[in-house]
């Protein structure tokens, strides 16, 4: 899939390929031209991806090739054992989790999971968890706390599922409980937005000592589309809504609503999963070693104080 703003790059890349094929087939030396075209592509890429609009970043966060939670988990852990079920209703496939080894240390991973093809998307419910997903997440967090293992959550959801059964089983209560309980967890909690961070559905696993966003992700109270439909009464103002919501990693950091940005490979996380996973792993390891230095009570106090300082009011 090529996004609108990626087209000029894709066109040049195609030209480059043609040139390379030509050089090989006809056995002529085009290395100077090839080099110059490669430089041109590199410059264009840099220019394009440094100057993305907010809406373009939203598009990147939803890119069909973008790595999902399990892609990262498998990439950065050695032994990973997935854990299933909320012990009440069912196993929510939109919320995954399990124990994994990262640098000889066991970490509890939890995250929303999207699907790659139609069948998977259905199975994963497009990464929209039901209440049992949030309750499964909480069960895993409590287990991590019991065994003194740190928690890493990977957030990637267009929202908590707005379905009939979700309401019957208390979607609101499930998210609310997670918010409160996550403030009490005695183990370190690191939360990373890896794709979409939509509203309460994202926040439901995003209360942490450290909250990071990947460079091309968004995190806000509502998606630009829904915001457009409510405030402008039309679906056509999504670009404008994205601008108004200030939902990118840079915006969220400058408003002190997150703790840091994790940079992505040029062109987005999907261009180089290995490289992205390495950066992600390094960030987790570094954050953990920092959090390890604090007593549990101190960590909890700082976690609470951090979120309580968020907001702008006039007295």
């Amino acid at each position: 899939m090529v996004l609108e703003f990626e087209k000029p790059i894709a066109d040049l890349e195609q030209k480059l390929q043609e040139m390379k094929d030509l050089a090989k087939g006809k056995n002529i030396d085009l290395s100077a031209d090839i080099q110059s075209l490669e430089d041109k592509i590199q410059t264009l890429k840099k220019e394009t991806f440094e100057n993305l609009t907010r809406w373009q970043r939203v598009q990147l966060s939803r890119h069909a090739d973008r790595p999902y939670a399990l892609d990262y988990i498998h990439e950065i852990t050695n032994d990973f054992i997935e854990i299933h079920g909320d012990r009440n209703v069912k196993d929510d496939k939109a919320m995954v989790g399990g124990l994994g080894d990262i640098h000889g240390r066991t970490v509890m991973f939890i995250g929303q999971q999207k699907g790659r093809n139609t069948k998977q998307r259905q199975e994963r419910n497009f990464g929209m968890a039901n209440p049992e997903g949030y309750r499964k997440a909480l069960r895993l967090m409590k287990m991590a706390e019991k065994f003194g293992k740190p928690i890493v959550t990977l957030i990637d959801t267009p929202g908590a599922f707005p379905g009939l059964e979700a309401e019957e089983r208390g979607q609101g209560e499930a998210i609310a409980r997670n918010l409160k309980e996550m403030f009490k967890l005695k183990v370190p909690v690191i939360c990373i937005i890896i794709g979409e961070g939509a509203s309460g559905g994202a926040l439901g696993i995003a209360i942490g000592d450290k909250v990071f966003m990947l460079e091309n992700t968004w995190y806000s109270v509502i998606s630009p589309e829904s915001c457009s439909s409510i405030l402008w009464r039309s679906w056509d103002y999504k670009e404008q809504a994205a601008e108004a919501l200030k939902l990118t990693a840079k915006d969220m950091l400058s408003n002190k609503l997150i703790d840091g940005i994790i940079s992505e490979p040029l062109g987005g996380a999907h261009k180089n999963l290995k490289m992205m996973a390495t950066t992600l792993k390094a960030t987790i390891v570094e954050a953990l070693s920092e959090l390890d230095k604090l007593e549990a009570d101190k960590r909890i106090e700082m976690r609470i104080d951090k979120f309580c300082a968020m907001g702008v009011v006039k007295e």
Partner: protein
Amino acid sequence: MAWFKRTDKGIKTSTEEKKDAPDGLWYKTPKGNIIHTRELKSNAYVCPDDDYHVKIGSKEYFEILFDENKFEELDGNLTSGDPLQFVDSKPYTTRIEETIKKTELNDAVRTAVGKLNGEDVVISCMDFNFIGGSMGSVVGEKIARAIDYSLKNKIPFLMISKSGGARMMEAGFSLMQMAKTSAKLALLDNAGIPYISLLTDPTTGGVTASYAMLGDLNIAEPGALIGFAGPRVIRETIGKDLPKGFQSSEFVLEHGFLDFIVDRRQMKNRLGTLLKLLRN
């Protein structure tokens, strides 16, 4: 030839110029019963003929719940900032100013401390009139401070929710108010101070997904709309009509997320008894 001829051009009133109808002497319930507003007031704003609970605000709830309507308001002067310089059909700052003027409220929640049947209580009550009772920084901060007051003075906390959810014009800041209020409730938990959440019509979105559902006791007025997603969104998602009574207080009670439903006319006494039982 037409019977009536329009002589004046452009007599359509633009939305901005339309005036709110003045409060009349009579109130008509959705079922069509008509009641005198004076009688309504003396009946805790419940229609005696069909038990319809009229939507009311903090002023009325305080009047119903506090002994002799005596209370001390906390943080009454807090007003909203505009951290994102948000503009949709009009700038957020203009919207706030206009709403303050129209409603004579400073934001969508008011906090007060006083006595309810002799029991000390801190009450935060939302006002739906103020941008749909939406939760922005002021709502989050005032609730956080109300809980701080509860903690400091060891007084039970009663939250009366009535909200469409988060305030979009504060985007990320609004979302984090869910976290902030839940953090304070975690502290209240640890201190063993009771928190009663009263859900009224309507309570949806981020408010349901944070403090409204976190009471030691969650109670509601009859017939209130209570849910996470709004009914329109759910209908569009599942592509089917919703069953009758879906997301009503009665439905939520039946599914185990409320402790009981209380008629507004008995509310004060029920709450008084509850607070006494929790204290003794």
